[in-house]
């Protein structure tokens, strides 16, 4: 019984910061000692739809960047994960550690170097430039998750399918992909969320011209309109929560997540 009480307590504490967000997003002039606002309003939510708040623009840019980054890191992570998960070769541990550096080492110095190059390439302050730097944290996670899934993968199925006359493309789409699907879902979830939530990389390379949702939120935060800030904050949670719910089944796959626990 104490076990369940403890779990409920933990969940309650984890949910605590969401309460003021929810209340503020519907509150009209909620001054200090009031525990509950005296007046409610939908004006903050209506304001989101106005082009002046730039929320719709931010939502679309965030979505485009996160989806492209996810697809690109999947394309790169699939072969890399296969190599690390299935093949023994000299220098494997070193290469694996090298692939992980971007998620452990501070990107600040690197960003200043990359920015120097991007300015010369005309990519500073463009969506393409932002996607490029978002690949730095997403590829390592994708590779980690997929390598762990491939480590439990039996290539015998592929051999079998090949010997029965399937083409390489058929083998991949009908044999390999279904078998590694949980890993692909978890890897894609991580990549999407990292890109969607990324602040510092976009802040540096976006140069104020790429306006993702975190940029919108950061700008509004300086303004001090708590109601609007809360409404934008809640909006930027929605895609991640939806994705998490959709992937909840795959998140129980220990092979996919064990990869992150085996750096």
């Amino acid at each position, binding site marked *: 019984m104490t076990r369940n009480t403890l779990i409920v307590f933990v969940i309650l504490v984890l949910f605590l910061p969401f309460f003021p967000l929810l209340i503020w997003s519907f509150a009209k002039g909620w001054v200090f000692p009031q525990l509950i606002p005296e007046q409610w309003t939908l004006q903050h939510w209506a304001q989101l739809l106005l082009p002046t708040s730039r929320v719709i623009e931010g939502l679309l840019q965030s979505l485009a960047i996160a989806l492209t980054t996810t697809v690109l890191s999947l394309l790169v992570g699939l072969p890399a994960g296969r190599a690390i998960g299935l093949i023994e070769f000299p220098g494997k541990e070193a290469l694996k550690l090298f692939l992980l550096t971007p998620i452990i080492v501070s990107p600040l*110095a690197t960003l*200043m170097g990359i920015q120097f190059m991007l300015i010369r390439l005309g990519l500073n302050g463009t969506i393409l430039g932002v996607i490029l730097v978002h690949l730095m944290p997403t590829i390592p996670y994708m590779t980690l998750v997929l390598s762990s899934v491939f480590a439990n993968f039996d290539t015998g199925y592929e051999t079998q399918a090949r010997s029965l006359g399937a083409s390489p493309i058929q083998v991949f789409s009908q044999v390999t992909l279904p078998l590694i699907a949980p890993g692909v879902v978890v890897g894609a979830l991580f990549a999407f969320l990292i890109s969607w*939530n990324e602040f510092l990389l976009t802040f540096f390379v976006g140069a104020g011209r790429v306006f993702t949702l975190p940029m919108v939120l950061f700008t509004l*935060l300086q303004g001090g309109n708590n109601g609007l800030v*809360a409404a934008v904050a809640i909006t930027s949670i929605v895609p991640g929560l939806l994705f998490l719910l959709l992937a909840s089944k795959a998140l129980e796959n220990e092979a996919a997540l064990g990869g992150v626990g085996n750096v």
Partner: protein
Amino acid sequence: MGTGVVRPQPIRATRPQFFRQWRAYLLLLPAVGIIGLLFGGGLVLAFLQSIGAIGILGAGRISLDAYWAAFTNPEFLRSLGLSLYIAIVATGLSTILSVGLALLLRSAGRWASLACQITLPIPHLVGIVGILLLLSPSGLISRGFYNLGWIQSDQDFPLLVNDTANIGVLLHFLWKEIPFVTLILLAVLRSINPAYEMQARVLGASRWQCFWNVTLPMMKSGILSASLIVFGYIFASFEVPFLLGSTRPRTLPILVYRAFTDTDLTRRPEAIALGIILSLFSILVIAFYSWLISRDHKSIQGV
């Protein structure tokens, strides 16, 4: 790992070993190439800027002046100390609490685990806003205290955000990282064969002995990996201490950012030198971890 080598493979049985190895390098090439070009290349360009070999003001005299300026920056040591303090305390606490939470959730239902992962997909910025509106002197908790009659005004509420002890920053990281570490540890726990623990209990080990001598050693590599990622992230984090932390001293990433965006462009090499010093510290941490892990492997082989 590498089970593919052991397994019989009728079609490829005749292929020489190094052919498979070359295939591995080829498969890794895109990932290693992109990371090498972006991260490694970026670091090299940063270094060249810091010694004055290249720069936005054109190439200058090559020197290590920027590093001297960085080390003698009066704020440098205090900022480094603050960054280490936040990273060590937050990583340590979230790791210990996550081990507990993972064990609690181990036999709990799917929905309980999912609810405990709630902060996982939440952007740090949203967490920051939530914590500000919750813990600031006019926040929800302060209002609650006032209405309970525990405080007479918002002045009486202890300062928990932008405070010198960085309580708000620590609480934010605990809130955000405990679900992450717990998720990884739960996956590790699920892959552990429960027979070992049952055996230990049958042979008379107490619950505590069973946890300390059987369960925890099997979780060790998962704990090390997860805390390495968390430490690296917190040590390099920018927006959380920027918005929730103390204004003086500031963490190292904020010091780097301030120097980099200084209107005095001649301060740029110093900013980049500071950034490189910051990266070196995280690289040292990785080296320490891989030493810990390799020592672990050796001791296992020794048994």
